[in-house]
């Protein structure tokens, strides 16, 4: 498909030097944008999933006369609740937070000094539903009230809806950015190819007058442009691998407690980069070759 012998001065002119770099940059940016959109989507999905799957059960503190907390009684109630929950259908893991856990969770609100025992705090159980099953909240609520009057069962319905909305918005925004970058990237590639080929109008005319078919001329330009795009793609890949390694490192070094984790294995990270990269390289190549074809056809159409 690639003629060994070009009649056209491709590869020795400005366009030859410019196109690979533009393709590299554009496919790089497009890949980053697609990857970012994907990552955000995954993140948002995991986030809502994480919250949605978890049901919180709150047992009020067991307070004896005065203000002292009966820790033993509380521990017993928590154990009882855990067993009861485990027997209900559709329930997966049940995690009981001890008083210290609860205090830590409330720390941002109550201050670091709030040690367990100082304050009467409720005890929490985090219940994970089995995958795909919607557990019976009413039954859970009934079982809990039996064990501890005033117990509260909450599936974070409000939060879940809010987060779903947020996730949708963020993904739409990222998608818009991808579209924008893809569009402007295509425009730049088209311009680069066209202005590069404009230099060859004389050559095109000579070939035309010598009796070359339109296809003969168009093919050479298109093949050459494809070739330049492939080179550009390679440069883009090199850039991407460097960026990916950097981002992975940076993400790893961030405090895991503060950001929701992606929880992706390294090979999943690679896929997250490879799929958009392949997409954008193919896209840029298609665009470049279409631009080359169109430019030459237009130049030819002006000739008799």
């Amino acid at each position, binding site marked *: 498909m690639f003629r060994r012998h070009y009649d056209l001065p491709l590869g020795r002119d400005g366009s030859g030097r410019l196109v690979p770099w533009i393709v590299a940059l554009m496919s790089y940016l497009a890949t980053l944008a697609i990857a970012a959109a994907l990552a955000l989507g995954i993140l948002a999905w995991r986030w809502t999933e994480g919250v949605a799957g978890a049901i919180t059960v709150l047992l009020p503190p067991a307070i004896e006369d005065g203000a002292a907390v009966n820790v033993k009684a509380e521990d017993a109630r928590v154990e009882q609740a855990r067993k009861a929950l485990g027997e209900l259908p559709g329930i997966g893991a049940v995690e009981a937070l001890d008083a210290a856990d609860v205090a830590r969770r409330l720390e941002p609100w109550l201050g670091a000094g709030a040690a367990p025992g100082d304050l009467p705090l409720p005890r929490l159980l985090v219940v994970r539903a089995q995958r795909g099953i919607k557990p019976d909240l009413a039954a859970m609520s009934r079982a809990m009230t039996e064990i501890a009057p005033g117990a509260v069962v909450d599936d974070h319905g409000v939060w879940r809806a809010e987060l779903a909305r947020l996730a949708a918005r963020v993904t739409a925004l990222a998608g818009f950015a991808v579209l924008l970058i893809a569009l402007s990237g295509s425009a730049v590639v088209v311009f680069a190819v066209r202005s590069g080929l404009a230099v060859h109008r004389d050559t095109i005319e000579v070939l*035309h007058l*010598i009796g070359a078919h339109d296809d003969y001329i168009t093919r050479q330009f298109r093949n050459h442009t494809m070739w330049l795009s492939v080179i550009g793609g390679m440069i883009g890949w090199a850039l991407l691998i460097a960026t990916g390694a950097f981002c992975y490192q940076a993400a790893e070094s961030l405090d895991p407690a503060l950001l929701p984790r992606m929880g992706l294995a390294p090979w999943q990270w690679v896929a997250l980069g490879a799929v958009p990269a392949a997409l954008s390289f193919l896209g840029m190549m298609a665009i470049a070759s279409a631009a080359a074809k169109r430019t030459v056809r237009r130049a030819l159409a002006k000739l008799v």
Partner: protein
Amino acid sequence: MLDSGAFVRFENVGFSYGDGPEVLHDIDFTLEPGTFHFLTGTSGAGKSSLLRLMYLAERPSRGVIRLFGRDTASLSRMEAPVLRRRIGVVFQDFRLLQHLSAFDNVALPLRVASVGETEIRQHVGELLTWVGLADALDARPATLSGGEQQRLAIARAVVARPDLLVADEPTGNVDDHNAQRMMRLFQNAHNYGATVVVATHNAQLVKRYNYPQLHLDSGRLNILPVALPPVPHAGPAQMQLPANG
């Protein structure tokens, strides 16, 4: 058809570039196959324009041009290149491809016509030797002297043995000796049957070779028959004066 045998037939052709003034008026002539003509006229008379019409680089504004018995107005985009391959052109400004070697420039018409590489190598080599560029096979046109470029352009025009050979001022940059060599190339093409038209300012040349002239005078064509008995090896071109010429 009246002029089925005619190689080149202009019928009442007028031509202007874009919206500009008409540079060729009522051009009407026929060239029979195997004839040899000079095209003369002062600078700006329209010689190059007439040749451009002949080698299908432009379309006439009015009138009909027939090449090899075909009305050129009715050519499809697939047919025109096939016709063009039967025409060899020496452009006034050479139009060599600067990025190709001398060899590849001359090989171009053969490559476009899908001739095999072995044949190309032999044929092109011979021709370049004849025009005195045997040492410059790999040279880029920019590294050749003006006359060398002109000879290269001529080699490219004749290499595919065209049926119609059109040369625009092909000896402007070469000395007398080389001009005669180049003329011998054209005569050679003529001898194997090509129809040849050479536009030139060189009165010397016209006088020496004494072929019939197409003479342009500010866009109007007069046909001047040969003045003296023709030189032996190139019989007089057969003229067919149009009825309304």
